[in-house]
């Protein structure tokens, strides 16, 4: 019989960074086929694409889009942190990059939101 860790063992920044990275990656992965399908509508003409765009011009969809932008920004900067740790000369867990990722994602989210309401 083996005991396993629970959430108390996971309560530190680098673990949350891992979790965020994995969950955002999963979310983006599942989103991509939908995204490609939507853009592919243009094969049926501009009207088909417009139909899709109008159907998704609702608050719930816009909120989801905003969420995806934030996930994308998080996944990218979290990923760059991993690349620095794995290929660069990091001497620690680069928690500054974790904070930076959150900041960048917040900025990207805000910029997107501002653009949405422009």
């Amino acid at each position, binding site marked *: 019989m083996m005991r396993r860790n629970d959430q108390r063992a996971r309560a530190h920044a680098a673990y949350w960074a891992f979790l965020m990275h994995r969950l955002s990656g*999963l979310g983006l992965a599942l989103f991509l086929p939908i995204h490609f399908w939507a853009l592919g509508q243009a094969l049926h003409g501009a009207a088909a*694409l*417009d139909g899709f765009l109008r159907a998704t011009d609702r608050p719930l969809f816009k909120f989801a889009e905003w969420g995806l932008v934030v996930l994308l*920004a998080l996944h990218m900067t979290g990923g760059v942190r991993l690349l620095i740790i794995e290929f660069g000369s990091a001497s620690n867990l680069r928690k500054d990059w974790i904070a930076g990722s959150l900041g960048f994602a917040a900025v990207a989210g805000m910029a997107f939101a501002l653009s949405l309401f422009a």
Partner: protein
Amino acid sequence: MSTAAISQAKRWYWQRVSAMVLALCVFVHLGVLIYAVRGGLSAAGILGRTQGNWAFGAFYAVFVVACAVHVPVGLANIATEWWGLRESVALWLARAFGVLLLVMGLRAVWAVVA
């Protein structure tokens, strides 16, 4: 050395290399979509800028290929570690998803550029 371990090491490597490409692509794409979403999205607005724009097409084709390389590796890990799938099944699932992304993604690029 087990060939499985060699493949796993290679998968790790290609996931990281594609990640480097994607870091750049995503950064550009974030800029593009934040710009494009201003004033609302419309087919005319999008296609007006993308149709015939082969530089745009080349960039996004590279983006799609990088995604198709990068996504399956992470998915296979999640499938093995969290969903309890055997490695062979997880890999098959991930590869199928990668092919799906490649086909649908390139189709989407063609759809807006051609």
